[in-house]
């Protein structure tokens, strides 16, 4: 809550957050493995985009492949598992 309440008197009635939660809460730090895409082998089926539970895969504007939003990707690996071309690899973070 960005308004930094100091007591119950400063709270809204209901538990709500004012910020755009995507901007306020970067969850990329949860990852152990990160997906790395080889767009040269990408078949443009966008199955990874459909399956990503966190909407962290973006289709490139020129349609040549996808990019990962590492601020929000939690490293679940679903994209790598689902990719029929096997062009997404899970790589250790460090």
């Amino acid at each position, binding site marked *: *809550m960005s308004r930094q*309440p100091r*007591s*119950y008197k400063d*709270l*809204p*009635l*209901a*538990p*709500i*957050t*004012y*910020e*755009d*939660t995507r901007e306020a809460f970067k969850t990329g730090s949860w990852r152990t493995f990160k997906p790395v895409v080889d767009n040269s082998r990408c078949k443009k089926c966008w199955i990874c985009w459909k399956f990503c539970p966190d909407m962290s895969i973006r289709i490139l504007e020129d349609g040549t492949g996808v990019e990962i939003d590492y601020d929000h990707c939690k490293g679940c690996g679903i994209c790598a598992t689902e990719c029929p071309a096997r062009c997404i690899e899970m790589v250790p973070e460090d």
Partner: protein
Amino acid sequence: MAKKLINGNYAAAFGAKLARAEVIAAYPITPQTAVVEQVADFVASGEMKARYVCVESEHSAMAACIAAASAGARTFTATSSQGLLLMHELLHWATGARTPVVMVNVNRAVAPPWSVWADQTDSISQRDTGWMQFYSESTQEELDTVIMSYKVGESPDIMLPSFTTEDAFFLSHTFEPVEIPSQELVDGFLPPFRPEIRLDVENPRGFGSLSMPHQWYMELRYLIAEAMDRARERILRVEQEWKELTGRSYGGPLDEYRTEDADVVLMNAGTAASTIREVVDNLRREGKRVGLARIRCFRPFPTEEIRALGRRVHTIGVMDRCYTFGDGGPFFTEVKSALYNLKDRPAVKNFVVGIGGRDITMKTVGKLYDNLFRIKAGGLDSEKEWIDLKRPEVG
């Protein structure tokens, strides 16, 4: 204002219509069915400008109402017994989300064995959900309370859900003359629902977020507690406003009848109060100083009113059409707890009565007053007793 012959269920539907409920989501269950049928008719005929959402369960009905109320719509639903129990999880949610949903619950016994008859276990089981609970005595009161509960619940400094109950059959199916207020009157009394916080695509916010132990969960619960305490005063004020418009009021959260100089008082919630009034008048004619205090509002609990009564009455009998296994009748335990810190406490006895719709007759009530007079003369015989129970014959 025209009088119509309607039953409690239709009265509830008229209440929702006159309050201009905008979203109705409900699932039918005996003996509540006529409420949702009538509302559906109102919507289908265009008399009610509302969205009627057909759902597959009571759980979904409440979820739909919470969502609609979060978007700023005035909502209405009705249920009974097992249906209310299925809603339980979302009743807590409605409170936490501060959505002032209004519901009608027909008090019906819980299974097994199956029973569709009057018993207040279903609503009493929702004690800790943070819903305001009103218990109606008459069909007219049911209609009026539905309208009043919107006004109380939607007050910006309250924002709490509420339900009004009808004893199954004794109110839900009882036709009696009811004054239907005009739409103009209700519009003048109840302003449109305009919540400060609501779902808005132009101004997105996260709803139902997480709170860690060191953050704000405890404080948000405290806000609910404060709002519920404020509701005590608000219920009285809203009832006063309603009285000024209609001439009708119901005695606030604790509706007292001939208690001013009473030696013994019976306490009760629900329709049996009418029968008790008749017995009170009969006994008064015999010179016996008896009274009735009807608990009209169970949450918030009329603690101060009960203490004021306890200061001047010698013996109180609390009737419970429900039971908390391993303790006593829930109305009894709460009344006793309200009285505990008084210096001179009255004796309090629990009468468990009318369970599963068993009839509470004038004869039953007469026995209870006899018992209270015996207690006044000779002290408490027992703390609780199941009345009209089929017991094995002695000897």
